[in-house]
């Protein structure tokens, strides 16, 4: 199985995630699309790790998992805080920074 298939698949997943980040307005769904982009990057790193027979890429993907988990925790915390303060859950409505 040639390695290009995996890379093209990862590019496709990244592009779908990018389109989702751009066209969706709900912050929860935008975070989900960020996960899609991260999984596309993880797939590319695992493909190169397999290509070179080197395990470093797998450790990198684990680090991506950790960063994604942290990002989810902070992002969803922000969503819950927005919901509590009656701020509409729509990124187009958030035009200014307020304390």
């Amino acid at each position, binding site marked *: 199985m040639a390695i*290009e298939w995996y890379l093209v698949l990862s590019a496709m997943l990244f592009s*779908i995630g990018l389109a989702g980040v751009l066209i969706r307005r709900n912050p929860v769904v935008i975070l989900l699309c960020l996960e899609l982009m991260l999984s596309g990057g993880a797939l590319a790193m695992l493909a190169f790790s397999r290509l070179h027979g080197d*395990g470093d890429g797998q450790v990198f*993907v684990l*680090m991506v998992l950790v960063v*994604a988990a942290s990002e989810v925790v902070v992002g969803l915390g922000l969503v819950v805080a927005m*919901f509590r303060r009656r701020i509409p859950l729509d990124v187009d409505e958030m035009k200014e920074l307020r304390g």
Partner: protein
Amino acid sequence: MVEVAFFFGAIGAIGGALAVVLLRNPFYSVLALVVHLVFLAGIFLLLLSQFIAAAQIVVYAGAVMVIYVFVAAYVGGIEEPMFDASPGLRVFGPILAAALFIEISIAVLGSSLSALGTEGVAKVQPGFGTPEAVGRLMLEDFLIAFEAASLLLLVAAVAAIVLAGRKKDAAPPAESANAGEAG
């Protein structure tokens, strides 16, 4: 056999990804992402990354998605009109994504990777991708990254409590909403 498994997993992963973007209800989007991650874990298995695939299922599809489900249920299913606002992005978002995909595909397929592929991918040592191999790499070669990741997770946990925690002396929700409008 590997090709069949790859295309099966790829169709599932792409279908899940498209469903995440195109479904209107955020709750269904979360469930579609779970499907996507499970199929992607199968593709990880084809790349001899057993431990990553297991971690993907347990950590991502298990734990992280549960947080998403809770939050999506908490804020309620907000049925947003799919192609309603931000008309500029509505048009240019998919175009930009398609252009990026075509560009990366040209770069990948036009590179000399195919020359590498003709002689087959590298032979791997026995035990490649097992928890033992990954753990040995992580605790010997990448110890600083490992410790930094633990610190990052601690900071993220504290941040979640600070951001979403209910303040003890906060006014009841109705009054705080009025105060927010007044302020």
